[in-house]
């Protein structure tokens, strides 16, 4: 019987698949896609056993997670373990990673069919899953950081998968560099925590912090730096710019990395280190909340005008990530993890359904789509489920999770924050409604694409339909009865916080307000975009400056470009000048040049004529004698 102590197998399986595919990929039948799928599916099965083991342990009462590992680095008495910690928080995340991962791998066999680098795609995806699982299970910050960079690297590889396309190569670089900016802060934060505590182990750091080992200001600085890593990875303002561009990657990549797993790693990391945020100054959590609010509002409004189907879904992802961060800023880890859990399903669903549209029509601008519900009914239905989940309509899973967040926010934050979050719920209903209407209803705007449109093949449709079914029901885990029926100690809150569960309540006022705002939002979307979309066009003309502002993504990219062109590159030119002129020309070439010049001038003393040398020797001897005489006298 495999149990929680076998956690190390979880990342090992996909990593082994990666190595085999890398070395033997071209020689395997079907380029080895079955091996990658088998590895990630085996991880899911293994996870299921581990979960059963975990539930058994929970039944016995007291439980704090199982740690296992081997010594990694050892310097005298100080050592770092390659350690894995399996607890409830990791279980929630792993359920998403391994289950959604398996479905996306199956989906990829259809979406990537015929690609010249088909085998490499599965190899890179396997490496990603291995890194992601390591990130989730890591029991120390150093291993977490290594896996954190690992997923970032895989993201870079996969965004730039079609690197022949210049935009894809640029997007990959942008994603990598932007997240690196946050990662620098993350690493400094980790080192700050280690410097005082002398350990990287997360639990030992908690104990150290609870014993008052860190001063308040020091801890605040450290957690803010940790949060900087989350800002980059989870694409929060002001480092959100890479995520929409990351849609240049293949759609399965967007579904797995940029929706379900990697981008929520920041949320997961903050949730993991929440005890530190609790002990730090409230400023830290206020920063989390503020940045998340800006992210939510920016992304929701940008989603209103974007025309690329994947980009709209990407903006909705930004919106969701902001919601999770707001929940964390309100100390509501349960709500954040609950949203993370259901978000993994419905956002992967949205991306894969969008991928079916792209696959079927070869178009991804909604201005060239329309009326596709007739051609691809199952995809349309599945996308509708995902959109309604994202819009948080009762009883879809997004509703329960967003309601939990709204409740958490309303209890811990002031009315303004609550109102803004609720307003974003309205906005997300509008843009998800718009996206569905423009893609699947109305008259086709590109007849050629419409004629050729076809429903996706079974290997692409099945994962979508499975996720659609889960997106409908996953939210019911908010009820104790559902959780108990499935063998959990109760609702997700009771599962995650077994010892001291946070109650998930549904005050009717919030639920009603939420439902009303979603329904109104959907109605607004229907009014504005149904049919000829005349009201939307009129509004766009009427409020042209606002439309332009949103269309240009608040000019954030332009602002960064300006900063890079005018400040970074100008500074770079100064440094380059210093390097070229002072270091290279004067220092390196100057020394060599001086030696060369001296030698060049002095070589003419070598006339090759014996008398000259003889005269020089004689004169030298005379001068030496004269000097000696003068000194003696």
């Amino acid at each position, binding site marked *: 019987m495999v149990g929680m102590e076998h956690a190390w197998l979880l990342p090992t399986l996909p990593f082994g698949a990666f190595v085999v595919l890398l070395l033997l990929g071209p020689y395997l039948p079907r380029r080895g896609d079955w091996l990658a799928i088998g590895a990630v599916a085996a991880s899911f099965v293994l996870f299921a056993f581990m979960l059963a083991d975990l539930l058994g342990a929970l039944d016995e009462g007291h439980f704090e997670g199982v740690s296992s590992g081997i010594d990694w680095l050892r310097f005298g008495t100080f050592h770092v373990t390659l350690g894995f910690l399996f607890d409830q928080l990791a279980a929630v995340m792993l359920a998403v990673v391994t289950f959604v991962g398996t479905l996306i791998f199956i989906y990829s066999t259809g979406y990537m069919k015929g690609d010249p680098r088909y085998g490499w795609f599965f190899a890179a995806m396997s490496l990603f899953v291995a890194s992601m699982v390591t990130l989730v299970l890591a029991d120390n910050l150093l291993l977490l950081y290594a896996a954190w960079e690992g997923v970032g690297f895989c993201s870079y590889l996969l965004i730039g998968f079609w690197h022949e396309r210049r935009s894809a190569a640029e997007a990959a670089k942008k994603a990598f560099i932007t997240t690196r900016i946050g990662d620098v802060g993350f690493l400094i934060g980790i080192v700050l925590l280690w410097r005082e505590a002398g350990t990287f182990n997360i639990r030992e750091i908690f104990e150290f912090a609870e014993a008052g080992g860190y001063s308040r200001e020091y801890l605040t600085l450290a957690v803010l730096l940790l949060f900087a890593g989350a800002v980059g990875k989870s694409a929060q303002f002001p480092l959100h710019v890479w995520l929409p561009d990351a849609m240049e990657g293949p759609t399965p990549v967007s579904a797995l990395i940029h929706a379900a797993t990697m981008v929520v790693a920041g949320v997961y990391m903050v949730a993991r280190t929440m005890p530190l945020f609790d002990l730090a100054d409230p400023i830290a959590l206020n920063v989390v909340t503020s940045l998340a609010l800006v992210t939510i509002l920016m992304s929701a409004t940008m989603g209103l005008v974007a025309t690329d189907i994947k980009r709209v879904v990407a903006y909705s992802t930004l919106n969701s990530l902001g919601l999770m961060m707001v929940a964390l800023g309100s100390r509501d880890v349960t709500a954040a993890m609950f949203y993370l859990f259901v978000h993994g399903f419905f956002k992967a669903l949205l991306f894969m359904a969008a991928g079916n549209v792209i696959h079927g029509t070869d178009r991804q601008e909604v201005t060239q789509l329309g009326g596709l519900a007739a051609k691809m009914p199952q995809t349309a239905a599945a996308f509708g489920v995902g959109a309604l989940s994202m819009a948080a309509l009762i009883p879809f899973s997004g509703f329960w999770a967003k309601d939990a967040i709204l409740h958490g926010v309303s209890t811990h934050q002031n009315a303004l924050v609550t109102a803004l979050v609720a307003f974003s719920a309205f906005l997300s209903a509008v843009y998800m409604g718009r996206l569905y209407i423009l893609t699947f209803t109305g008259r086709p705007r590109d007849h050629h694409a419409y004629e050729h449109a076809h429903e996706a093949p079974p290997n692409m449709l099945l994962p979508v339909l499975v996720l659609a079914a889960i997106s409908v029901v996953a939210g019911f885990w908010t009820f104790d009865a559902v959780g108990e029926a499935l063998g959990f100690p109760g609702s997700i809150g009771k599962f995650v916080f077994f010892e001291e569960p946070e109650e998930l309540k549904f005050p009717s006022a919030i639920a009603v307000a939420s439902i009303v705002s979603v329904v109104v939002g959907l109605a607004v979307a229907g009014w504005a975009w149904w049919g000829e979309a005349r009201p939307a066009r009129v509004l766009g003309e009427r409020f042209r400056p606002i439309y332009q502002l949103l269309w240009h993504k608040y000019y954030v990219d332009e602002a960064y470009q300006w900063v890079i062109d005018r400040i970074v590159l100008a500074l770079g030119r100064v440094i380059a000048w210093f390097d070229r002129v002072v270091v290279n020309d004067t220092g390196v070439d100057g020394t060599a040049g001086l030696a060369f010049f001296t030698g060049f001038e002095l*070589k003419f003393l*070598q006339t*090759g*004529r*014996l*008398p000259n040398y*003889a005269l020089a020797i*004689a004169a030298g001897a005379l001068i030496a004698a004269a000097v000696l005489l003068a000194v003696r006298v």
Partner: protein
Amino acid sequence: MIPIQHFLVLGAILFALGVYGVLARRSAVLILMSVELMLQAVSINFIAFAAYLAPQEFRGLIFAIFVITIAAAEVGLALAIILRLFRNRATANVDEVDTLRW
């Protein structure tokens, strides 16, 4: 006994003649002979100082023997070089031999 100054003056004159020969002559053979003059001037100095300062010892005399030996070897070598030079260039004029340079 002849005062040491006489020997030293003789040595100096010989040495100066040698220097003059090396500087003024253009024939390699004559330059070589001038060098020999300078060596013998040095030998005279050695012997004179040896006789005056430590007559019971042979250190200065040994130096003179060495100088003569080395001079003989050196002349053998140098004459061979000059011979080869003359075979190649049909001249022993050092002004015309200036290819050993930059």
